[in-house]
């Protein structure tokens, strides 16, 4: 199990081999590689995620510990129309291969649908422009009850001062409704320079209106909870886990007579 530490979400448009060396040096023990699907563009298909073992033959060790970094795969769906959500409802084989699924709603109605009915782990909050809608308590509380976390990005705040204002104002308006619960702060870093250490990100959470404990949880405990939420999608109600095990041929033959016996006795 992951030693609860920071989860940094990393956009990969072109994956370079050198990238995995930076997060473990900063102290992150898990990283999620993100793949974005924007339904506005035509012909978007969900492709199979590339397994981390193929991308990085040997994972680096987290600085200060002797464990290797954990790499997860994540899918972000940018939805601006209710019909886009149909993809999540269908049991597409490729979607189930991702560890974490996030949705980025663009309208208030979609935000409501994402919080109340959609089977996702994260709901992304827009930080690059003024929010087109206000947050309301019922959908936010329902999302908290369902175990869905709200994601805030910090990299746009590093890049541009206007986006910094929007990030802080959007974050504060979210905090007023959700009271600091169920928040995950992540980067959307495409370059190593846009990464910040986990304790620095936890400090940034204080600017967003989180308390000290909530800010640290936003980069550690809440990320672990999101991962577990994603894992429950691969199990039955989060209780039963099925693992494919190769069956031997002789087992099948011996099973058959036992069934026949039971029938005759009954």
């Amino acid at each position: 199990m992951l030693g609860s530490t920071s989860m940094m979400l990393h956009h990969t448009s072109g994956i370079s081999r050198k990238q995995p060396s930076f997060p473990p040096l900063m102290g992150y023990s898990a990283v999620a590689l993100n793949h974005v699907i924007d339904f506005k563009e035509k012909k978007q298909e969900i492709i199979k995620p590339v397994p981390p073992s193929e991308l990085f033959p040997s994972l680096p060790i987290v600085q200060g510990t002797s464990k290797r970094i954990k790499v997860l795969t994540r899918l972000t769906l940018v939805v601006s129309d209710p019909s886009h959500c149909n993809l999540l409802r269908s049991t597409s084989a490729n979607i189930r291969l991702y560890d974490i699924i996030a949705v980025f709603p663009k309208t208030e109605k979609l935000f409501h649908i994402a919080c109340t009915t959609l089977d996702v782990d994260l709901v992304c909050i827009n930080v690059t422009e003024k929010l087109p809608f206000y947050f309301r308590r019922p959908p936010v509380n329902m999302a908290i009850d369902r175990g869905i976390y709200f994601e805030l990005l910090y990299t746009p705040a590093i890049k541009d001062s206007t986006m910094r204002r929007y990030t802080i104002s959007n974050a504060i308006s979210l905090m007023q409704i959700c009271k600091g619960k169920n928040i995950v702060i992540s980067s959307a870093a495409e370059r190593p320079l846009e990464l910040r250490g986990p304790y620095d990100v936890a400090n940034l959470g204080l600017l967003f209106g989180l308390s000290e404990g909530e800010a640290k949880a936003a980069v550690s405990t809440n990320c672990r909870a999101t991962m577990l939420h994603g894992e429950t999608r691969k199990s039955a109600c989060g209780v039963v886990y099925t693992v494919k095990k190769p069956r031997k041929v002789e087992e099948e033959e011996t099973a058959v007579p036992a069934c026949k016996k039971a029938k005759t006795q009954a």
Partner: protein
Amino acid sequence: MEGGARRHTFMLPGKLRTCPSITCQILPFFPCSARLQGSLGLWKMYGEGFKQKVSFLIPECGLLPEVLKSTIADIGDYYLVRSLPIHELVAHEFIDAFVKKGSCYALTYKTKIDQDNTAALLPNGKLILSVDKDTYEELGLQGRPSRYSGKKVMRYIITIDLTDAGFHPESKKHNRVLWALKEKKPLEFDFLMAWYNTGAEGSTLMSYFSKHQIQALRPKITFSTLRDLPCPVLQSNDLQGKPEESCSTEELFEWLGAVLNQVSLDNKSSSFLSTYCCPEPNTVVEKAFLCTITGFIIPEKIIQLLEQLCCYFGEPKLAYWLTLTVHGFADSPVSWRESEHGFHKGGENLYNFVIFRNLDYWLQMAVGAHDDCPP
């Protein structure tokens, strides 16, 4: 030192010699041992725990006296044992050979207290395991939630008293602990270990753990002589400092942190790193001796060093004061005695002795946000 979220500093002024009468006379040539009796006994209580770094600074000193040099050289080795399963520390052979005879110290190496499982063995025979929620639920041993865990408990502390009378080889307690650590959830760590025995013969840690990868390591010792160092003027009976006369304890603490971290104190206009200056009033000393010892240092050796530093003023010296700073490990599960230590944004737990020429002393203790106030 560096600013943390909440840093508590405590000052304890004191006299290093016993005062037989109410009107205390300052007698600078008292023999060392009599002076230290009272306060060091008190200090042994606070001084427990695992120490990572010891530094001392002596102004107006170019060469270290021989007796101090030999005390430092006598610091002793510590051991790094790789991939040691923790049930070996619960085995009765280990307890009889090391824990019951002398003081045995062990701490997990390269584990972070706020993320990973950590273990520590204290010299009083208590094995402390600080485990995360998943490990606690899988392990099945009784513990209590961590004090710094918040509403949703994510960390638990399990304390096992190895010297307890009820912990003998055939007892239920011992069998349960051994089963949990050996079969239910085998935990394996790299350990830093040290053993202080008062002359008793027997096997050493090196021979006991010869089957595992054990390495003997020496603490890293660096000496440096600082030239033209501005030092604050201090009055031993004046903790708050008087303007134009002496510096306060907080100013000394900040200045000492700057000197030990080799921050330049001249506030050059071309420097963008620091604008810190030595607090006023200060005197520029021609030379000062700084020694830093880094490693796994046990409190018994630190007390010997402290005793020798107190004896430094046995002969007339130019310096008015000297300091000894001891840092604990940031990732240790315990800080003072057995009080729990956590890592919020910083895990500092350190104490600083300032010893004056007249054998008065100041004791400053600093802890991080997730720490107990020292008693």
